[in-house]
């Protein structure tokens, strides 16, 4: 049994999601190889070779694989798939984009966003926005899997895998045009230990600096509900939920968020949940460890002040 993990990386650095996916792959049993596809990604390939439990790194050095272009990466993975029993990718937007393309080319039904590995062919995955957990067994000879990274701890360092070069032809179906990435010095949501999120109750993007100031004190990431993104308060990559980012920080603070099923799906595995909402009936309070029924425009500045008092 050998598994191939498709690395999430920025060419110069390997994302944490990769080491988490390696943990899921290792749970299948057997060897784990990691594929790093992208131009000038030697640094990411080297980082992958140091993950504990990785036996080999495949490095495909070509600009056609940059920006996660799925047509090229799927063609590459399919060309390698003969040697593998399973192909895994983290359930990031890149992984979700490319993995089903690979699965269909291999005539395999994908297992999406697994949260547990029960055996080499049986997995748990959430359905209906996490309101039910499905235990599902794959009858396909090869498995194609995306992994919910919040459910797996990152594999540690200490590996010393060999790095081998691989390549494939360019299918020439699509080209990358541009990227507009949100600039932030704060931790990325899926990696943040603390997150403070704002909802429609924030009323305007102009009020988000209130949350930014708390985030800066706590070293937190800033997220949002769909309503806040739809209203244009913050960019799309802030969205936490069933169809946005799935997060599970130590502390999640929901401000002016009602707690719709779709939002809860993205944050209810957080260790400690705080809700600040003026409506004491808001469903968010049913999952909150600490609820503060208050007007956020009063409570959030007070929270900032109280954090200052304890030296934050």
């Amino acid at each position, binding site marked *: 049994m050998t598994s191939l993990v498709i690395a999430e990386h920025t060419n110069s650095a390997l994302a944490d999601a990769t080491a988490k996916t390696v943990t899921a792959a290792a749970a299948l049993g057997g060897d784990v190889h990691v594929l790093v596809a992208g131009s000038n990604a030697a640094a990411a390939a080297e980082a992958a070779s140091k993950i504990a439990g990785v036996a080999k790194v495949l490095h495909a050095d070509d600009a056609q694989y940059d920006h996660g272009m799925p047509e090229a990466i799927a063609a590459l993975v399919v060309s390698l798939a003969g040697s593998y029993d399973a192909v895994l990718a983290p359930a990031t937007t890149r992984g979700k984009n490319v993995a089903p393309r690979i699965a269909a080319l291999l005539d395999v039904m994908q297992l999406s966003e697994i949260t547990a590995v029960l055996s080499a062919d049986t997995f748990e995955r959430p359905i209906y926005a996490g309101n039910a957990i499905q235990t599902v067994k794959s009858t396909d000879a090869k498995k194609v899997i995306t992994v919910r990274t919040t459910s797996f701890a990152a594999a540690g360092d200490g590996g010393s895998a060999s790095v081998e070069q691989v390549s494939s032809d360019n299918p020439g179906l699509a080209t990358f045009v541009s990227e507009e990435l949100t600039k932030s010095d704060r931790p990325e949501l899926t990696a943040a230990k603390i997150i403070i999120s704002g909802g429609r109750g924030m009323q305007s993007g102009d009020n988000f600096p209130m949350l930014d100031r708390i985030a800066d004190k706590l070293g937190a990431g800033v997220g949002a509900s769909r309503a806040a993104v739809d209203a244009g308060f913050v960019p799309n990559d802030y969205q936490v939920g069933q169809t946005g980012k799935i997060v599970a920080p130590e502390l999640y603070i929901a401000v002016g968020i009602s707690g719709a099923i779709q939002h809860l799906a993205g944050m209810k595995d957080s260790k400690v949940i705080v809700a600040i909402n003026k409506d004491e009936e808001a469903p968010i309070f049913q999952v909150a460890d600490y609820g503060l029924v208050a007007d956020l425009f009063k*409570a959030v500045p007070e929270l900032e002040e109280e954090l200052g008092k304890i030296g934050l």
Partner: protein
Amino acid sequence: MKVLVPVKRVVDYNVKVRVKSDQTGVELANVKMSMNPFDEISVEEAVRMKEAGTATEVIVVSVGPQQAQETIRTALAMGADRGILVKTDDVVEPLGVAKVLKAIVDEEQPGLVIVGKQAIDDDSNQTGQMLAALLGWPQGTFASKIELAGDKINVTREIDGGLQTVSLNSPAIVTCDLRLNEPRYASLPNIMKAKKKPIDEKSAADLGADIAPRLQVVKVTEPAERQAGIKVESAAELVAKLKAAGVIG
């Protein structure tokens, strides 16, 4: 250019589903069903293309039971031209749906297929990408903007770090995200008109598509329930509790 839009009948997004006590699935009896919300967005986009004169015909297709006809009617009332129901009472996995859709694409030859990013029941997020693979077409997933530019289709995509734009050769598959548009409500006259629009009925076998499932559902269970905690009276008390819990400071 013809535009094909696959629409799925799912449990309405406002329903909090319950797991059946025998753990075989979720309770579907007497539960409100609707069109998958992402598919409303796809239908809207296709209808806007027709209104703008860039699409000649909008065809909706659903794979599902007889009642999926209602979902198709909803799309016809929004402005789609005709429907295809691929009738089956079995659960069809995304790979099977993609195979059915491929057969329909081979027959209809659309220049664009707009698929939802994710069905809110199985939360698979696979069908569009699989269809693109089976056809050998490019894919623009999680779209917040679609621009037809000659023989290219430019798609702006919602990605983890922000937005990305790709240029696809046509024909192509696009899967839509929440910000692509705001779907309209069908007007009463259009609902009446939709009753006269044609819906063709087929089976997967007619289309030569293999829809046998590959996954066996062993069981379906309730997730771990979170207990509601306590209410605090002030920001000061909140900070004290969080400090005591060891999550700050």
